[in-house]
Structure formats: structure tokens, C-alpha cells
């Protein structure tokens, strides 16, 4: 079964600093990868997704992720974080039945 591993459970970072949240996936012939964000007391929201084509995908709020087949990774990056980016971030991979297999999540804490 397809799976993802999020390598960091917590990532503390100062405001305006760059951040990388790491995600590795189990190899497969084809893979669809997602990053979801969960703000405190809110539901999951799609941040970005890789389906095919360009290996670099971007979100509307400055996050980007790069699909790296040789390293089986889909790390999430942002060059400069804001306090409002504090949230739980989940990497996920689509399984054969179209549902999502999620990682355990990375808690991003941005401080002034």
C-alpha cells in the first residue's frame, strides 16, 4: 500500500525565516501527492497537490513543494513564514481506491 512518512513531528521557526517540512513516500509506478493544512479548531484544507507534469507545485499563499522521484520525497517549503502559518501540516498519498493515506503530521510553530 502507498504510504508517506513525515520526518519531523514539530518544527519551530522564527517569523520571516525559511522553513522546510519533510515528506517521503513509498515508491510506486505512479503517485499522486498532497499537502493539507489544519489550522487550530478547523478542518483540513488542501494546500497543494502533485498529479503529473511539472515537479514544482505552488500554493496561493507562498508554499511550494517539489516532487523528487529519485529521492521519493515531496518536501514542503516556504521562503519566509508568518505567524499565521502556525498549523498542523499533513502529507498524503492517494491510494489505489482514491482515498488518501496521511502521514502523522508536522506541527509548525512560528514565533516572533
Amino acid at each position, binding site marked *: 500500500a502507498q504510504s508517506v512518512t513525515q520526518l519531523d513531528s514539530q518544527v519551530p521557526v522564527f517569523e520571516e525565516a525559511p522553513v522546510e517540512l519533510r515528506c517521503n513516500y513509498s515508491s510506486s509506478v505512479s503517485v499522486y501527492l498532497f499537502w*493539507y493544512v489544519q489550522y487550530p479548531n*478547523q*478542518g483540513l484544507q*488542501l494546500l497543494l497537490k502533485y498529479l503529473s507534469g511539472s515537479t514544482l507545485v505552488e500554493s496561493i499563499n507562498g508554499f511550494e513543494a517539489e516532487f523528487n522521484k529519485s529521492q521519493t520525497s515531496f518536501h514542503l517549503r516556504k521562503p519566509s513564514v508568518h505567524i499565521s502559518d502556525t498549523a498542523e501540516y499533513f502529507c498524503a498519498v492517494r*491510494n489505489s*481506491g*482514491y*482515498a488518501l493515506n*496521511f*502521514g502523522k503530521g508536522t506541527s509548525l510553530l512560528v514565533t516572533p
Partner: protein
Amino acid sequence: EAGVAQSPRYKIIEKRQSVAFWCNPISGHATLYWYQQILGQGPKLLIQFQNNGVVDDSQLPKDRFSAERLKGVDSTLKIQPAKLEDSAVYLCASSFQGAIDTQYFGPGTRLTVL
């Protein structure tokens, strides 16, 4: 466009009691998912419907959990009887017709079993 609706938002019950959760997906979405999110973990699929048929329920504890999606629209997830380890957030999601379509999640129901 209205999002995925879930109710109740919070529920506290004692072990061995029964509980039911309701989900109304986005209009026109054929695929509906129920996920269980235990504190500190990522969501785990419990059951997936395509219209009113079950696509995947391999991780649903069928001795105590049941779900239905009558008429292929809204869905109910039931736990009977509840155990302490069922304490979690139950998330409902829907997508237009699976595959590469985005899954949209509801706010979830937080269940506490005492």
C-alpha cells in the same frame, strides 16, 4: 458553494453507549469518505462510498462501527458500543468522482468517550 457539513461538532459519551455522526457532502459529489483522526496522528480512512455503494471499508471495525449513505447523498456513521479508544475526531470528506479530484473536508466531530 457550501462546504461539507457535519454534525454534531462535539460529543461526549460514556463507554458502551452509542453515538451517531452525520455528514452532508458538497452538492454533486459522488464520493464520500469517513476518516478517523486520533490525537497526534494523521487521519485514517474508515469507509469510502461511491454514490450509495461501499468502495472500501477494510479498516472499519465492523463489530462496532457501521455507516450508510442512503440515496447517495448524506451519510451517517454509527458506533455501538463505544470504547475509550474511539475518542477521536471523525472527519467527513467528499470529492466529485474520486481519482485526481480534490477531497474537501468538513470541520469534523470531536468524540470523547469517558
